[in-house]
């Protein structure tokens, strides 16, 4: 009995000590250093216009304005909602989790494709890149592929009265290439591109 009590005591004390080291000292130390060395990144890489936060470089948004690039499909609508919206359930992330064989998946994609074709009458179905019509894993993907950006040029040009070359230029400016030429994929940051469009339109 005495042995068990002494065992429990050691178990309890090590747990408390480790809780303080790993659960408090460690995260506070990382926070302190991170805030000092990488202040912007540690606070969410926020983008400000005229000192007002309009988004994060790393978190996607959805766009309804035909003069803006649209983002990928999101199951959580990028946590975007109208003021006073009662249906919004709070901040979340994730995916529809439709299996490849789930008929809901094909139904959802077909609807997105039809809608996209209506809004982009110059585009033919076979040219629509699948990444734009599929939903991202997190529902917060800030990027689209270059093909998905280029296919929207006609619509944006018509709605924004910018020239196609100007839009091409915006795509080029907000594209990040594969890291070191091999790692990852080429991609365009949608929020940054849309901010540039707004600036040009002014």
């Amino acid at each position, binding site marked *: 009995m005495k042995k068990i009590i002494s065992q429990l005591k050691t178990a309890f004390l090590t747990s408390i000590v480790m809780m303080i080291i790993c659960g408090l000292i460690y995260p506070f*130390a990382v*926070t302190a250093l*991170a805030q000092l060395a990488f202040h912007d990144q540690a606070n*969410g890489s926020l983008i400000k216009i005229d000192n007002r936060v309009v988004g994060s470089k790393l978190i996607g948004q959805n766009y309804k304005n035909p003069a803006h690039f649209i983002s990928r499909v999101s199951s959580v609508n990028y946590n975007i909602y109208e003021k006073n919206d009662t249906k919004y359930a709070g901040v979340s992330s994730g995916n529809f989790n*439709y299996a*490849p064989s789930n008929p809901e998946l094909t139904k959802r994609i077909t609807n997105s494709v039809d809608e996209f074709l209506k809004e982009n009458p110059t585009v033919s179905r076979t040219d629509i890149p699948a990444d734009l019509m599929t939903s991202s*894993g997190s529902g917060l993907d800030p990027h689209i592929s270059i093909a998905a950006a280029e296919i929207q040029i006609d619509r944006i040009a018509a709605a924004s009265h910018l020239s196609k070359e100007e839009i091409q230029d915006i795509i080029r400016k907000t594209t990040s290439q594969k890291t070191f030429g091999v790692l990852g994929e080429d991609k365009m940051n949608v929020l940054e591109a849309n901010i540039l469009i707004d600036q040009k339109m002014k």
Partner: protein
Amino acid sequence: MWQIILVLVIYLPLVLIIGRYLYKVTMGEKMWGDSFFQRIEGIIYKISAVKQEDMTGKQYIFSLLFSNAVMIAIGYCLLRLQSVLFLNPNNIGNMETTLSFNTVISFMTNTNLQHYSGESGLSYLSQMLVIIFMMFTSAASGYAVCMAFCRRLIAKTDTLGNFYVDYVRVITRILLPLSFIVSLILVSQGVPQTFQENITLTTIEDKQQDIALGPIAAMESIKHLGTNGGGFIGANSSAPFENPTILTNIVEILSMMLLPGACVVTLGLMIAYRKKRSNNVWLGKQGASIFIAMSIIFLIGVAAVYISEKSGNPAIHAIGIDDHTGNMEGKETRFGIAQSSLFTAVTTAFTTGSINNMHDTLTPLGGLVPLFNMMLNVVFGGKGVGLMNMMMYVLLTIFIACLMIGRTPQFLGKKIEAKEMKLIALCILIHPALILGFSALAVVTDGGIAGITNPGAHGLSQVLYEFASSSANNGSGFEGLLDNSTFWNVTTGLAMFFGHYISIVLQIAIASLLAKKLVHNESVGTLNTSNATFTIFLVAIVLVVGALTFLPALALGPITEYLQLNS
């Protein structure tokens, strides 16, 4: 394709270096930074009343069980009380009973199955005091047990090593320093680390957007280094705030591969050094044969996911859009097919369970690989347990091979006899019994069926995946499953608990039996366990046993779905 090879090439030297370091930490050898670490460890031992004396296998495992039980109790209380404690800027309520039970078991067993969503289910304090804390301690417990197991394989006595000493040394000398460095790399790339509350902002189109923040980086690093896998944010490592760039993706992949691989290297060194110490040995022959066997199964898996995802989903192709990039549903643009496939194979082979793409949306064969990895649970595996499982197969292989050629089965000069073989067989059988038994229960009860969200064969895959993930202490999921219900919280909680603790108790028992045995000299008649023949035979045994056990279930799940989609 090239980027997958590149990451694996970077991995090799890293794992050899860390393996050597782990060897020194485990064996208590002189090393760099000793005076600094010893001072800190001295203070910890003193406060915690740790007597640094050697333990028998039995004492060792009891210490582990006691300490884990205490942590489960503390963690449970914190989750149930989080709403009234401090550091809760987003005003999150207390966690419900069965969900709290599931969550503490999940994190203590290093599974990190999450039936809650981090941004809405846990306060910052719970994320730190329960989740981050258990990520360190569950990993350290696992590595401590693995090292106790390995030491007993080569030892001539069962009384060696102290659980608390191993456990503390793994945290102070390996997990904390590495986590610290990795956290800062992650922050530099954009992973938040702040105690600020979530942000609500107005977008350029005049709508509201909520952005979840928190001390994410500190968790993200140990989540991978400790092969834990539980995310701060619901979407786990697919969320940009957990994994913003391709560099963080690679750092996370390497972090989770590092220590499970290092365990194999450490065992290899222990075996190589038991006769003669030499600094030219990096892995040892025996270590190499096990490492290569694991790598073969791993590489087959990586290739299979990549090819399957790259070839895309026939159902999407039929809509008539341009899907030459592959199956992008559930994947992030910045990772694409290659980095997503690699992550999927690594997270299930190395039993981490974090995800950078949604496994429910993988193509049928792409989803079969992670499922099969977890069913085998020996391809490196997480927190040392994978190596112990693989050693069960090594001993089984030796036994079968020796029966075939009529020799006495022995490993490192120690005879493998009836008592050990019974325990080994039991150990190998528990895992499929838990997966298949609970899956059967789920598909015949209303509570189980209520969780299934995808129709047809894929529904069965969701059930199998959830229990394979629980029993293998992986923690990833076919996330569509509506798993936050009493049925799923309790059954997966039990699967995680038994899958973890029964296995390690049996494995330490086997190691204790072997530790006490006489060491026989190796002769020409001894089976060579470190050549290519043995490696191939080992791979074959693992695959045959795995296939025989799980093929019927797999045939009804992913394989049926594949045939339906491609017909």
